[in-house]
């Protein structure tokens, strides 16, 4: 059972705050003053405006009470109240309702199986494999993306844009802002529509299916215990699963986590140890003929995920998360609901992500104009040599940060030309996975967590990824592992 974490003096309790607000309310709201007071404590916007209008005299004092109360509670007041009410309901039901024990339906049995730690995990792995890897990864991010890129962008849009820019913009340096390898139209737009749009559409389709069937909250229950150890609750399974689609989007979705502490931990883990679909694609391509290397890579990443989560949860102040989630019944999802949900989410995501893509495009343009990139590639060569990789990999790493397929192709080229041996391959894959996936996520970290934490996380990830790769390289070499 969840305990309220407030144990201070009674003057600061929710009950006292309600009483104080009730005394300040004069107008007859139809809903009882107590009920209005509780809605005010939950910061209900509509009621707040209503009281501001009807009880103008006492309003500022009420606001003060509400804001003051918040400082005594770790969780939002609405959460505290919801838990208290649920306890009250459970008490009543315990007396008045009996559930037959012997009539366990098939649905209930399936539901228990899905949440059973021994049987549930293989099911979870199977669903992830077919849903995420096969459906979203191979079909959505592979087949469909290829089709849109080659048949729509390469054939029609890119030539059209190049033609228009050449005709209407006389200055050469401005051309590169719009077209060419990193142009706004040829890269930012193409990225958004030809790559991100199909991937997110397939991902959200999968996500809506596991959500509407009631499977998602069961995954959350299944891994709640493990997640508690790393300072997260089962609820964080949602951004974490989303992270395998697109970590930028997942970072945005950390908003659903109830406390700031959980959001920081989730953002850090997403930036560090959750490979997005683009990264997964590259890594699978690089390691597919080398199962042992793939195994080492997965082991290292899994270990880092748990270790960093565990350490952060020890270091960051604040209480351990409590978990409170309804488990809806399992049912067949309705197709029309799933499609509408997918559509709404893709639309929402697009509205949020498009400006970030455009900003990234402008930044790259400026960076290239000012020759900052050549400089950064030079800087990167040192650390790469230290982790046992050839200097040529620097370009792949840096440009991969801006343009995923470029980084991938870079590494792929190196490996195809035999410039990377098995150990180097694993080391570079680990470094690439831990390294910030892309500039959009970097900007999202800042947008969601603020300057200080956003940049802090990114700098940490940068150093940490190279340190791990460095250690891994030495360990593999010392053990004489040949892959």
């Amino acid at each position, binding site marked *: 059972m969840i305990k309220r974490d407030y144990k201070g003096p009674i003057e600061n309790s929710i009950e006292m705050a309600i009483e104080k607000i009730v005394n300040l309310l004069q107008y007859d709201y*139809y809903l009882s003053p107590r009920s209005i007071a509780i809605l005010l404590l939950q910061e209900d916007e509509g009621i707040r405006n209503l009281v501001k209008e009807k009880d103008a005299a006492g309003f500022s004092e009420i606001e003060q009470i509400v804001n003051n109360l918040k400082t005594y509670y770790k969780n939002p007041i609405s959460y505290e109240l919801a838990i208290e009410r649920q306890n009250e309901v459970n008490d009543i039901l315990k007396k008045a309702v009996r559930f037959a024990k012997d009539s366990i339906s098939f649905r209930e049995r399936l539901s228990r199986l899905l949440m059973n730690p021994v049987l549930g995990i293989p099911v979870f792995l199977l669903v992830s494999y077919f849903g995420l890897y096969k459906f979203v990864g191979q079909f959505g991010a592979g087949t469909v993306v290829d089709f849109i890129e080659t048949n729509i962008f390469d054939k029609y849009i890119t030539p059209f844009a190049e033609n228009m820019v050449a005709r209407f913009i006389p200055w050469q340096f401005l051309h590169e802002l719009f077209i060419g390898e990193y142009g706004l139209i040829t890269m930012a737009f193409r990225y958004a529509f030809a790559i991100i749009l199909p991937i997110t559409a397939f991902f959200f389709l999968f996500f809506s299916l596991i959500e509407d069937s009631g499977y998602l909250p069961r995954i959350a229950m299944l891994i709640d215990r493990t997640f508690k150890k790393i300072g997260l609750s089962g609820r964080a399974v949602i951004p974490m699963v989303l992270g395998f689609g697109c970590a930028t989007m997942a970072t945005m979705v950390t908003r659903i986590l109830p406390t700031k502490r959980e959001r920081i931990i989730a953002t850090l883990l997403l930036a560090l140890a959750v490979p997005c679909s683009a990264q997964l694609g590259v890594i699978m391509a690089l390691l597919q003929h080398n199962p042992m290397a793939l195994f080492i890579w997965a082991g290292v990443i899994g270990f880092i995920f748990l270790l960093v989560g565990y350490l952060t949860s020890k270091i960051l102040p604040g209480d351990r998360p409590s978990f409170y989630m309804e488990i809806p019944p399992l049912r067949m999802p309705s197709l029309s609901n799933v499609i509408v949900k997918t559509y709404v989410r893709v639309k929402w995501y697009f509205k949020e992500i498009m400006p970030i893509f455009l900003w990234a495009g402008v930044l790259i343009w400026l960076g290239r104009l000012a020759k900052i990139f050549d400089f950064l590639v030079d800087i990167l060569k040192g650390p790469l040599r230290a982790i046992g990789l050839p200097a040529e990999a620097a370009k792949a790493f840096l440009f991969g940060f801006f343009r995923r397929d470029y980084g991938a192709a870079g590494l792929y080229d190196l490996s195809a030309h035999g410039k990377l041996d098995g150990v180097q391959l694993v080391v570079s894959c680990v470094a690439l996975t831990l390294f910030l996936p892309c500039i959009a996520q970097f900007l999202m970290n800042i947008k969601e967590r603020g300057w200080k934490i956003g940049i802090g996380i990114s700098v940490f990830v940068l150093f940490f990824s190279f340190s791990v790769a460095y250690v891994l390289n030495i360990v593999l070499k010392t053990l004489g592992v040949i892959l």
Partner: protein
Amino acid sequence: MSVKKIAIVGNPNVGKSVLFNALTKQYVVVSNYPGTTVEVSRGKMNLDGAEYEVIDTPGMYSLYSITEEERVTRDILIKERPEIIIHVVDAKNLERMLLLTLQLIEADLEVILVLNIMDEAVKEGVSIDVGLLEKELRIPVVPAISTAGKGIDNLKKKISEYDKKRL
């Protein structure tokens, strides 16, 4: 004499509209709530010579409103001040549904709780002590299967009792 208002509230998909149709049979008006795309149905009901306006409100999980539907329902309550609130719940799922009941009681509204979809609840092995529930909540509780018209007469009886008590 002004017409008394009755609002039917509850989560989505608990059978509010079926119950509404069973109570009102005639003079139903469906319109968008002003400034929204949310539909609200209103109908008339005669009971022991008294006339009531019954409002079928959009689905709501909590008085603390998040969705547009919830805002509309709360607006209806606050602006139209119905005399009686009928809270319809899915009897299979009381654990989730009674949260709103408690909020409505806390708001000092005249609430009648309708335990709908009783047939499925019985099938799933849920047995509810209605008398004890009434005592715990201190409001009238009516078990019903609105799709089969069961419990409607009992509900009407409770409505007139409520009214007489208030006079």
